[in-house]
């Protein structure tokens, strides 16, 4: 019975798209509403609760002094973790991160890193000995589609509002600083029945054939891409998504700036 209902629901989503509209009335390129609340976890150095439509993530940032990597003795360390909390979807199982969670954390991490969003060198406390380690922990708590984009917003918003805990570790507040140099924005598109839609909800994801994510920086350059899910893309389609992502990325970036 459940399976039959799910089948009817999927058909409805597909039929809508083939008639040129989406079940939630959006146009193909429309994003859902974004809500950002920052600094709501007092014990985190930075935090953000982000809703993209009904999809919801909580991101917390913690800083600790630690050792730098041997090949980057002057750089702070960024560690990004995404957890598909079991409460977020009936499909998510408890346990260590699977491939889906791993992909989210790596794509979000890559966006921040490749965009040079954080100036890691300004997180060096003592060359080769001690640097700030930034732990960005992403908790997905309600999965209504497009986890990569909402996680990216959450991560950068939490970092933008974070403050280094000098006092706790008895360190000189002038020794280092946390510079956010650009805001990387991730835009995800999905192919469904020959059409390309943006910011898919979870029902659209279920029937979609393939997906691509484009991350741009404030200069409107591309700093990351990730094709996901089996299925194929034509080069032209990819470039169309890139063009849209540059445009939409700029809008979303403004939205983030306003809300943080």
């Amino acid at each position: 019975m459940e399976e039959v209902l799910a089948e009817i629901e999927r058909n409805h989503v597909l039929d809508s798209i083939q008639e040129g509209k989406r079940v939630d009335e959006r146009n193909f390129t429309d994003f859902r509403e974004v809500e950002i609340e920052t600094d709501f976890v007092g014990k985190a150095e930075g935090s953000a609760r982000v809703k993209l439509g009904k999809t919801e993530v909580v991101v917390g940032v913690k800083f600790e002094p630690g050792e730098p990597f041997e090949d980057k003795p002057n750089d702070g360390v960024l560690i990004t973790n995404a957890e598909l909390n079991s409460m977020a979807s009936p499909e998510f199982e408890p346990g260590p991160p699977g491939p889906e969670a791993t992909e989210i954390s790596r794509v979000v991490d890559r966006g921040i890193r490749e965009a040079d969003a954080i100036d890691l060198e300004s997180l060096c406390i003592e060359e080769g000995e001690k640097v700030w380690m930034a732990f960005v922990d992403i908790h997905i708590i309600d999965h209504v589609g497009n986890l990569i984009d909402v996680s990216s917003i959450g991560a950068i918003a939490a970092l933008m509002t974070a403050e280094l805990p000098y006092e706790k570790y008895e360190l000189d507040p002038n020794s280092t600083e946390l510079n956010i140099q650009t805001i990387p924005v991730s835009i995800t598109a999905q192919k469904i029945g020959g059409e390309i839609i943006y910011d898919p909800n979870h029902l659209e994801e279920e029937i979609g054939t393939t997906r691509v994510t484009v991350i741009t920086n404030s200069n409107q350059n591309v700093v990351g891409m990730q094709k996901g899910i089996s299925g194929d893309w034509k080069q032209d389609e990819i470039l169309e998504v890139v063009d849209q992502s540059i445009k939409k990325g700029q809008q979303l970036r403004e939205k983030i700036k306003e809300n943080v």
Partner: protein
Amino acid sequence: MAKKEKPDQFIDDQSKRIDGREINELREVNIEVGVLERADGSAYIELGDNKIIAAVYGPRELHPRHLQEPDRAIIRYKYSMASFSVGDRKRPGPGRRSKEISKVSKEALESAIFLEKYPKSVIDIFVEILESAAGTRTTCLTAASVALADAGIPMNDLVVSCAAGKVDDEIVLDINELEDNFGDADVPIAMKPNTEDITLLQMDGDLSRDELEKSIETAKQGCKILHEEQKKALKERYGGE
């Protein structure tokens, strides 16, 4: 690392606690019902600085089958602290403390749920602590029970949970972090308000028999106040008298 220190006194001359509360006063509490889209039931609770989400899935078929009970549903309860919810970052994954709390919390809820209505099924309860400020196990339970109601799970009563503790020779309600770290005892209980049956009881510290009795009494008073908040939140969501 800079450390917290034990205060000189926990209760001042006006009988006020270090956070300004009376001896029998709960921290500020706020409960919201139905906060998640995908879960079958959910609730968000703040108690002082504690910030917790509870979600319920089920009853649903349990897999693999050899874990099923032929004549009743089983409950799974996962107590989880976000790594950023505490002062020093917590490593992801459940430690021994989380495992124990999950066990006693599950046991605290079982007697309230009509398990025999759902043979071979599982009811999953997930609680996630976004910010932790003493009293998470009890606050999680209070929220979980509301999330169960939101999911439409039939229960003979809500379960509500609260702690009392001892500081400066006084029994106080709903201890905060400093009172927890440097106080003399912590007595978390859970109960079913209609019958005052106790479904969770732990204690650590050092109490005489009579102090223990008073602690249980005090915690029960807290439970009653929280129970009103549970009902209010459910009423806001579902209406009804």
